[in-house]
């Protein structure tokens, strides 16, 4: 079929350590990249701004969470709090007059520091208990944020983001915002794609599978857990900062609440733990589909002449969002990334039986 090869067979180590082991995957990636690059010229600015941009930034953030949850296997229910740290630090730095390039890095580093605190919980407990601890930490962070006017920006608890400027250029246009988001997402994606080829990536996987077995093999699980949390928090911080700088323009605590933490985790799990394309798909599904369904319901009811309660309409996206999580987990617990892999593997040897690895 589209793949022109029957199964993945490597004849040498170079081909085995390629990022894209299937040429069609590489072609797909190149196509998506080119489409992303050309999107401002192809899509109306409404789509660009309200769909593409958040999708890219949330994907970057989800990839960061995937690093710690998918690769290192540490459950994290306080990711939004870490994003908030980055966002607030970067914006305060920028308001203080620090150039945005450095402000973003400051945001990332601040997140790393706070995010590493979460790692100390991970050193003590795993699984469910880690999830609960990080959840509690999220509540603590939320509380600190809402109760310190110095951070959250006075009595309105909102903080205006100064105009984004990178490399001496003020960025104010939709296209400009889009490219910033695109560049950041690309950077994170390249990092994550390469991660699995590095010793770091393998160490993280070893820690995920069995941390004390990894320790016996000489992998310092203590060090790698902290490293995973720090790296993922850095991504979270910058993503949070960019989200405010290019999308919300106004930072408010509820943008980084518990519900958001759960949402990012949902994106990662629905997408597939440890899957990069999965994170893209997961974010698209969780972020865009509920709104889409709502639009369809609203449009459908109107054309059928039915009156749907405004309140009902307002809560349908939430119900759909929950239902999506449940449905995807029922169809394929390993997420959309695995689903994509299954379809690819099926087509790769079509019309014969399934691919044997």
């Amino acid at each position, binding site marked *: 079929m589209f793949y022109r090869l029957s199964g993945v067979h490597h004849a040498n180590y170079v081909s085995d350590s390629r990022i894209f082991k299937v040429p069609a995957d590489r072609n797909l990636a190149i196509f998506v990249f080119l489409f992303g690059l050309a999107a401002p010229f192809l899509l109306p600015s409404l789509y660009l701004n309200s769909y593409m941009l958040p999708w890219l930034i949330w994907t970057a953030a989800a990839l960061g969470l995937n690093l710690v*949850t998918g690769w290192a296997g540490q*459950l994290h229910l306080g990711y939004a709090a870490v994003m908030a740290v980055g966002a607030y630090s970067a914006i305060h730095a920028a308001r203080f007059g620090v150039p945005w390039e450095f402000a973003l890095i400051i945001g990332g580093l601040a997140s790393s520091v706070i995010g590493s605190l979460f790692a100390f*919980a991970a050193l*003590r*407990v795993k*699984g*469910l*208990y880690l*999830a*609960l*601890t990080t*959840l*509690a*930490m999220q*509540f*603590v962070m*939320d*509380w600190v944020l*809402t*109760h310190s006017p110095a951070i959250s920006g006075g009595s309105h608890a909102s903080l205006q983001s100064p105009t984004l400027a990178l490399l001496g250029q003020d960025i104010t246009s939709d296209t400009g915002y889009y490219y910033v988001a695109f560049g950041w997402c690309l950077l994170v994606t390249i990092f994550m794609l390469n991660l699995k080829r590095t010793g770091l990536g393998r160490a993280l996987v070893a820690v995920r599978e069995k941390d004390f077995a990894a320790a016996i093999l000489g992998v310092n699980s203590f060090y790698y857990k902290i490293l995973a949390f720090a790296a993922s928090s850095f991504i979270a911080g910058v993503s949070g900062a960019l989200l405010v700088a290019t999308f919300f323009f106004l930072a408010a605590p509820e943008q980084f609440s518990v519900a958001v933490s*759960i949402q990012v*985790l*949902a994106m990662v*799990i*629905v997408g597939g*733990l440890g899957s990069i394309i999965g994170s893209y798909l997961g974010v698209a599904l969780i972020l865009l589909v509920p709104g889409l369904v709502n639009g369809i319901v609203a449009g459908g009811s109107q054309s059928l002449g039915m009156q749907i*309660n405004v*309140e*009902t309409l*307002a*809560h*349908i*996206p*939430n*119900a*759909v*969002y*929950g*239902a*999506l*999580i*449940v449905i995807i*987990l*029922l169809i394929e*617990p390993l997420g959309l990334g695995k689903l994509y892999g299954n379809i690819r593997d099926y087509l790769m040897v079509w019309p014969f039986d399934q691919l044997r690895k």
Partner: protein
Amino acid sequence: MDWIFLSELAINGALTGLLYSLFAIGLVLIYKASSVPNLAQGGLTMVGAYVVLALSHDAGLPLWLAIPLAAVIMFGLGFGIERVALRRLAGRPVVMILMMTLGLDIFLRGTTLAIWGGTSRSMELGVSYEPFFLGDIFVSRIHLVGAGVAISLFVAFMLFFRSRTGIKLRAIADDYMASWSVGISVERGVGLSWALASVVAVAAGVIWGEIQGVDQALSLLLLKGLTVAVLGGLDSILGAVVAGIILGIIENVGADFLDPLVGGGSRELIVAAVLILTVMIRPHGLFGRHDIERV
């Protein structure tokens, strides 16, 4: 410090804490019977309260009929949840099960609000708001009623877990495979635990709905319920009750000290701190089981 004031804080805290226990019992039931962390209890509580309201206010049934009827409906819903959502995930890693219950929670909340709207409604149980004095100490009647319900549920479930069915449920939590091997229907057992937790959710929904109104804030009890469940030990009903009382007292007394210092709203902070400290210091809680490791 005024001792009467302090004991009033403590007693009212303990009563509120027992209401947290009422919520936490739902979590513990499911954990005890299937080792599944149930983060959907908030959503279930909301659904429970709304179903009671729909039966009593919208359909006009008297409350004494509406509440048992709602319990029956929720019992069925609990079984349904196990059948549809959890059966296929049995044996999967905890991440997925956790996400599944979170997804269920979001779905239940969203659906409830889509059907009944988001405006807060009152339960109108008919419990008098007249102050009730215990010696010199003022307590709220509805809290007393709720505490009574929590304690009777506690006694009922303590007895239940000694019964043959209860022992089977505990066996399931221990080892799915061994349970299958001796003919225990794991699916039915887990379903039963969800059904019972849903019935508990009706009780919690009614009491909390009376106290703070029936709206989506009911699902925010999750953090407190989780804290109580973890502090007591996730699989201990007795733990849920004792930890509820402890957390209620710490929260009420602590907030009284802390609020003036930080400008109010310190309850959430205290609860989160208790949760973090419990997990860090004693993850299996006060009465939870240690995992037995023999070499």
